C-alpha cells in the first residue's frame, strides 16, 4: 500500500522532481568521475614511466576537495528536497486526516526519497562512468599521448567513495524528511499552500542610498584589488575582499527597490501589459531572497575565477615546456651559494678580493668538492667524460656552461635607463650580482640544439633572457645602450638572445644573463674567479626513459666512488644554510630529479622527461581541480536559483490563475515567467561576471601579462561551461515553471 502510494506520487510529481533528480544525477556523476581520475589506466602507464608521484598528489588533492564538494552537494540535496516536501504539505495533511499515522506518512516519504535516490544513484553512476571515460581521453590529450588501445576505466574506490558519500547524504535527507513531516501541525499541513505572503518592501530612500553606496563600495573594492594586483594576501587584499562582499550584499539588498523606483518612473514601460506584475514579482522575490542571491553571486565569482585563473596557471606552468626543457638532461653544480644564503647588499669591492674571499669560503666549507673542482679545473664535462664507458654509452653530445658573478649589481645597468624608458614592472636589482657567461659556451649550447652561432666584438655584450617578466627591462637596457664596465673593459649591448636555455627546467626562467666575449671570462678566471653555478647539458644517445635510468646509475656510482655516499642524510640546498651544506651526497629512494647532492661535481640533476611528466601532471592536476570546483559550484548555484524560482512559481499560482481569469493570454504569462527566470538567474551572474572581470584583468596586468599568459582561452572555456550548465538549468527552470502554471490553469 505504502509502496503503491509512493510510486504513484513519484509518477505524478515527476516534473517537480526534475530539478531534484537532475541535481542528484549531476552530483553523483561528477563525484564519481573526478574521484576515479587516478584509476585511469593511462595514468598508471605514465606513473610507471615517469619518476613522479603526481598520481598520489592528485589522489590526495581530489580527496580533500571531494570532502568540500560532498558538503556542498549534501547541502544542495537537502535544500532541493525541502522544496519538494513543502509543495506537498497538503497531501500529507490529508493522509493524516484520513487516519494514516504520521509514522506511515514518514514511511511513504522515506520510500519516495529512497526510490528517487536509488534511481539517481544508479543513473548518476552510469553517467559518471561515461564521464570518466571522457576524462581519460582528456588526460591522454594533456599528456600528449594517443590512446592507442582503449581500456575501459572503472574504479572501485571511486564507486565506494560515491556510494558512502551519497548514502550518508540520503540518510540526512531521510532524517530531515521524517522530522519535517512529524513536526508539522495538521493545520499547517492542510493550509500549507495558503500562506499569504506579506510583501516585504524596503524603504525607497534607503534602497536608493543603499544602491548608490554599493556602487561606490564596489568601485573602491575594485580599486583596492587593482592596486594589490592579487599578488599578496595583505591588508589591502583583505580590505578589497571585505568591501566586495559588503558591496555585493548591499547591491542585492537594494537592487529591487532601486530598479522598481527607476522603472516606476518610466510609465511607458511600467504600465505596459504585464510588466508591472512581472516587476513586482521579481522585486518581492529579490527582497526576500537577497541573501541567497548574494551567496550565489559570491559562489559564482569563485567558480569563474577558480576556473579562469586555474586554466591560466596551467598555461603558464606547461605552455612552453618544449622550449624550457630542450636538453635531455642537465647536471647542475652550484658551487658558490653565497647568493642564496645572504641578503647583504652588493657593494663595489676590489675584484681580486671579492673572488679570493669567495674561493676561500668554498674551500673552507666544502673542501672535498673544492679539491675535486680544482683537480678538473671546474670542468664537469672533463670530470664526467673521465668516467669512460658509462658516459660514452649514454651521451651523444654535451655542453657545459659556467655562470660567473661580477662584484656589482644590475643596478649599474638599470640606473643608466632614463625614467621614460623604464618598464612598468619594477625589479629591485640592487642586491643581484650581475651574472656573466662566455660567448663560446653560449655557442656550445646553441650547437647542442642546432641553433646558429653568434658573434660579438670585443666591446659588446648580449643579454640572454627568456624570462617574460623581465623582457621589457632587458629591452630597455638595449635601448638605453647601458654600458657595462668589467675590469677596465667597457662593453655595450647589441641584442637579446631568447631562444637558448642555460639548462633544462620546468619553465623559461633564464633572466638577464650577460653574455660577454671569452676574453672577459678569461680575465676573471685570472683574477681567481670560480663559476658560481655550472650546468652540464646532455643530449642522450639512447631514448629518454632509458637514458634517465642510465644517468642515475652513472651519477650514483660516480659519486659513490668519489665520496662517502651512504644513501642517507636528505637535505636540500635551497633550504639549508650554506654552512650546513657539507659534502654530504644526498639521494632519496629511486628519484634523482631535484635532489641535492653537494656542490661539485653535482648538486642536482634535471631530466627533460621528468620535467615533461611533472609539467603534464601539474597541468592535469590543476585542470581537473579547476573544472571540478568550478563545475560543482556552478551546479550548486544554478540548483539553488532553480529551486527558489520554482517555489516562487508554486507560491504564485493563485496570481497566475487570477491573471488568466482576467483575460491574460498564456503567451503573456509565459513571457512574464521567462523574464522572471532570466532576471533571477542573470542578476547574480552579471555581478559575478563584473567581479570576475575585475579579478582577471587585475591578475592579467600584474601577473599573466608578465608571464605572457593569455587568459582569453581560459575565460572562453569558463564562459562556455557557464553557458551550458547555467543556461541548461535556466531553461529547465523556465520550462518546469511553465508546466506548473499550465497545469494549474488547466485544473482551475
Amino acid at each position, binding site marked *: 500500500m505504502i509502496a503503491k502510494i509512493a510510486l504513484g506520487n513519484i509518477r505524478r510529481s515527476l516534473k517537480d522532481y526534475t530539478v531534484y533528480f537532475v541535481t542528484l544525477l549531476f552530483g553523483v556523476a561528477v563525484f564519481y568521475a573526478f574521484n576515479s581520475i587516478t584509476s585511469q589506466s593511462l595514468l598508471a602507464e605514465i606513473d610507471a614511466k615517469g619518476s613522479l608521484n603526481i598520481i598520489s598528489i592528485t589522489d590526495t588533492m581530489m580527496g580533500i576537495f571531494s570532502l568540500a564538494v560532498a558538503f556542498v552537494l549534501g547541502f544542495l540535496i537537502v535544500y532541493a528536497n525541502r522544496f519538494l516536501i513543502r509543495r506537498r504539505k497538503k497531501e500529507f495533511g490529508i493522509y493524516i486526516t484520513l487516519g494514516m499515522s504520521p509514522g506511515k506518512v514518514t514511511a511513504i516519504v522515506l520510500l519516495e526519497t529512497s526510490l528517487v535516490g536509488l534511481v539517481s544513484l544508479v543513473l548518476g553512476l552510469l553517467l559518471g562512468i561515461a564521464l570518466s571515460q571522457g576524462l581519460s581521453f582528456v588526460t591522454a590529450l594533456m599528456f600528449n599521448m594517443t590512446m592507442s588501445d582503449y581500456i575501459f576505466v572503472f574504479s572501485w574506490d571511486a564507486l565506494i567513495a560515491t556510494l558512502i558519500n551519497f548514502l550518508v547524504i540520503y540518510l540526512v535527507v531521510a532524517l530531515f524528511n521524517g522530522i519535517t513531516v512529524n513536526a508539522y501541525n495538521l493545520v499547517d499541513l492542510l493550509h500549507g499552500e495558503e500562506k499569504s505572503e506579506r510583501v516585504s518592501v524596503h524603504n525607497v530612500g534607503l534602497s536608493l542610498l543603499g544602491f548608490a553606496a554599493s556602487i561606490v563600495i564596489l568601485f573602491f573594492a575594485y580599486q583596492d584589488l587593482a592596486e594589490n594586483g592579487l599578488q599578496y594576501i595583505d591588508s589591502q587584499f583583505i580590505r578589497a575582499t571585505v568591501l566586495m562582499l559588503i558591496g555585493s550584499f548591499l547591491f542585492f539588498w537594494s537592487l529591487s527597490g532601486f530598479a522598481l523606483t527607476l522603472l516606476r518612473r518610466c510609465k511607458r514601460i511600467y504600465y505596459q501589459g504585464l510588466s*508591472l506584475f512581472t516587476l513586482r514579482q521579481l522585486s518581492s522575490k529579490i527582497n526576500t531572497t537577497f541573501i541567497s542571491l548574494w551567496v550565489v553571486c559570491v559562489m559564482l565569482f569563485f567558480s569563474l575565477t577558480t576556473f579562469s585563473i586555474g586554466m591560466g596557471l596551467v598555461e603558464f606552468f606547461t605552455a612552453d615546456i618544449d622550449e624550457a626543457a630542450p636538453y635531455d638532461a642537465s647536471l647542475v653544480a652550484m658551487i658558490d651559494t653565497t647568493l642564496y644564503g645572504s641578503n647583504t647588499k652588493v657593494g663595489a669591492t676590489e675584484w681580486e678580493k671579492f673572488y679570493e674571499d669567495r674561493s676561500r669560503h668554498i674551500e673552507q666549507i666544502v673542501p672535498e668538492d673544492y679539491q675535486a673542482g680544482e683537480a678538473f679545473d671546474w670542468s664537469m664535462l672533463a670530470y664526467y667524460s673521465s668516467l669512460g664507458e658509462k658516459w660514452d654509452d649514454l651521451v651523444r653530445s654535451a655542453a657545459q656552461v659556467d655562470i660567473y658573478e661580477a662584484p656589482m649589481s644590475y643596478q649599474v645597468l638599470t640606473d643608466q635607463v632614463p625614467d621614460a624608458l623604464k618598464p612598468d614592472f619594477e625589479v629591485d636589482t640592487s642586491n643581484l650580482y650581475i651574472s656573466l657567461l662566455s660567448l663560446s659556451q653560449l655557442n656550445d649550447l646553441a650547437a647542442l640544439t642546432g641553433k646558429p652561432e653568434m658573434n660579438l666584438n670585443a666591446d659588446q655584450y648580449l643579454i640572454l633572457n627568456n624570462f617574460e617578466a623581465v623582457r621589457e627591462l632587458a629591452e630597455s637596457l638595449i635601448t638605453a645602450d647601458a654600458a657595462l664596465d668589467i675590469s677596465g673593459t667597457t662593453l655595450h649591448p647589441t641584442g637579446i638572445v631568447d631562444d637558448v636555455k642555460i639548462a633544462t627546467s620546468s619553465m623559461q626562467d633564464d633572466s638577464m644573463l650577460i653574455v660577454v666575449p671569452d676574453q672577459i671570462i678569461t680575465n676573471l678566471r685570472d683574477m681567481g674567479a670560480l663559476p658560481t653555478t655550472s650546468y652540464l647539458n646532455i643530449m642522450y644517445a639512447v631514448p629518454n626513459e632509458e637514458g634517465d635510468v642510465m644517468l642515475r646509475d652513472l651519477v650514483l656510482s660516480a659519486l659513490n666512488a668519489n665520496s662517502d655516499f651512504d644513501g642517507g642524510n636528505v637535505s636540500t640546498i635551497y633550504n639549508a644554510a650554506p654552512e650546513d651544506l657539507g659534502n654530504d651526497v644526498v639521494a632519496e629512494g629511486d628519484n634523482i630529479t631535484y635532489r641535492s647532492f653537494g656542490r661539485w661535481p653535482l648538486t642536482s640533476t634535471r631530466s627533460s622527461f621528468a620535467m615533461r611528466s611533472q609539467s603534464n601532471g601539474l597541468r592535469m592536476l590543476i585542470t581537473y581541480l579547476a573544472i571540478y570546483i568550478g563545475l560543482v559550484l556552478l551546479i550548486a548555484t544554478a540548483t539553488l536559483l532553480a529551486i527558489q524560482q520554482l517555489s516562487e512559481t508554486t507560491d504564485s499560482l493563485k496570481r497566475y490563475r487570477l491573471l488568466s481569469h482576467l483575460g491574460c493570454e498564456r503567451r503573456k504569462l509565459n513571457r512574464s515567467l521567462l523574464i522572471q527566470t532570466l532576471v533571477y538567474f542573470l542578476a547574480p551572474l552579471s555581478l559575478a561576471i563584473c567581479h570576475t572581470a575585475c579579478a582577471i584583468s587585475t591578475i592579467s596586468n600584474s601577473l599573466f601579462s608578465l608571464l605572457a599568459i593569455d587568459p582569453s582561452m581560459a575565460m572562453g572555456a569558463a564562459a562556455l561551461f557557464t553557458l551550458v550548465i547555467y543556461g541548461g538549468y535556466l531553461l529547465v527552470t523556465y520550462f518546469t515553471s511553465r508546466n506548473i502554471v499550465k497545469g494549474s490553469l488547466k485544473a482551475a
Partner: protein
Amino acid sequence: MTEVSVSRPAHTQQQNLDDPKLRGKGAEAFSRSRYQSTPTTLLSVRAVEKVFGSRDSITHALCGISFDVDAQEFIAIMGPSGSGKTTLLNCISTIDRVTSGHILVNNRDITSLGRRALSKFRRDELGFIFQDSNLIDTLTGFENIALALTLKGIPTKEVTPKVEAIAKTLAVESVLKKYPYQMSGGQKQRVAAARAIVADPTLILADEPTGALDSRSAALLLEILEMMNESLGATILMVTHDAFAASFTTRVIFIKDGAFFSELRRGDATREDFFAQIMEIIAFMGGEIAHDR
C-alpha cells in the same frame, strides 16, 4: 405571491416538471419563442447545458437554462446550493465550457471561441468581482486597478488618470498606495470593483461579492455596485444567495436544479419591498436558500 406569478412567464410552469429531458426541450422552445435577441440584449444565455462526469456518474449541473440580459441591467442570480449558479457564471465568464447550448454576448457566440479569443474576450468584454477579492498581493491598490488597463493595452498615458478617476468615484483613493494585506475586506472588494469596471467592460460578473464581508461593508459595496449600474451605466450580473444583496438589483433570476425557476423584476418597488418579494420566492422554492445561509 400574486406579484410573483405575474412576473413569471407562463412557460416556466412546464419547466418545474421533474423530467430533465422535458426540461431541456421546454427550455429550447422557450428560448426560441420568447427570447429572440433584441438590439438592446447584451447577454443571451440559450439552452445551456453543462454535464460533469464520465459515463458512470453524470451530473447535470445546468439543464438547458435560458435568459437574456439587457444593457445596463443589474441582475442577481439566486438559487440554493447546487442549483448551478456558479457553474452558470463560470460558463458565462468562459472559464468553463458549456456541454451544449449557446451564450451570446453582443450577438457574438462565445461558446465556440478558441483559447486565445477567449482570453481576449475576457479581457475586453468582462469585469470580475470575486468572493475573496482576489487582488494580487504583491501589487498596490493602484497597480491592481491599473492591471486591468495594462492587460487591455490601454495607452500608458491614460492609465493614471483613469485609475484615479475610478478610485475617486468608488471612494478607494485612500488605499491606492496600500498593499492588499494593509486593507480591510470591504476596501479590498471596492478595489476589486474598481478593477472590474475601470477598463469599461461590456459586462461585470460578480460571484458572491459580499460573501466574505460584514453587513456594513456589504451594504457599502452593494451601494457602490448600484451606483456603478445607475450612474456609470455598467451591466452587472451577480451570483448570490443573499436576499439582501439581491434586493439592490433591478432583476433577480432564480434557478433551481440547473434550470430557470422564476424571475422577479424590481420595477418601481422600494428596496425593502423588493427584498420582501425575494424572500417570498425563496419561501416558495422550499426555503432551501434560507437553509443554506
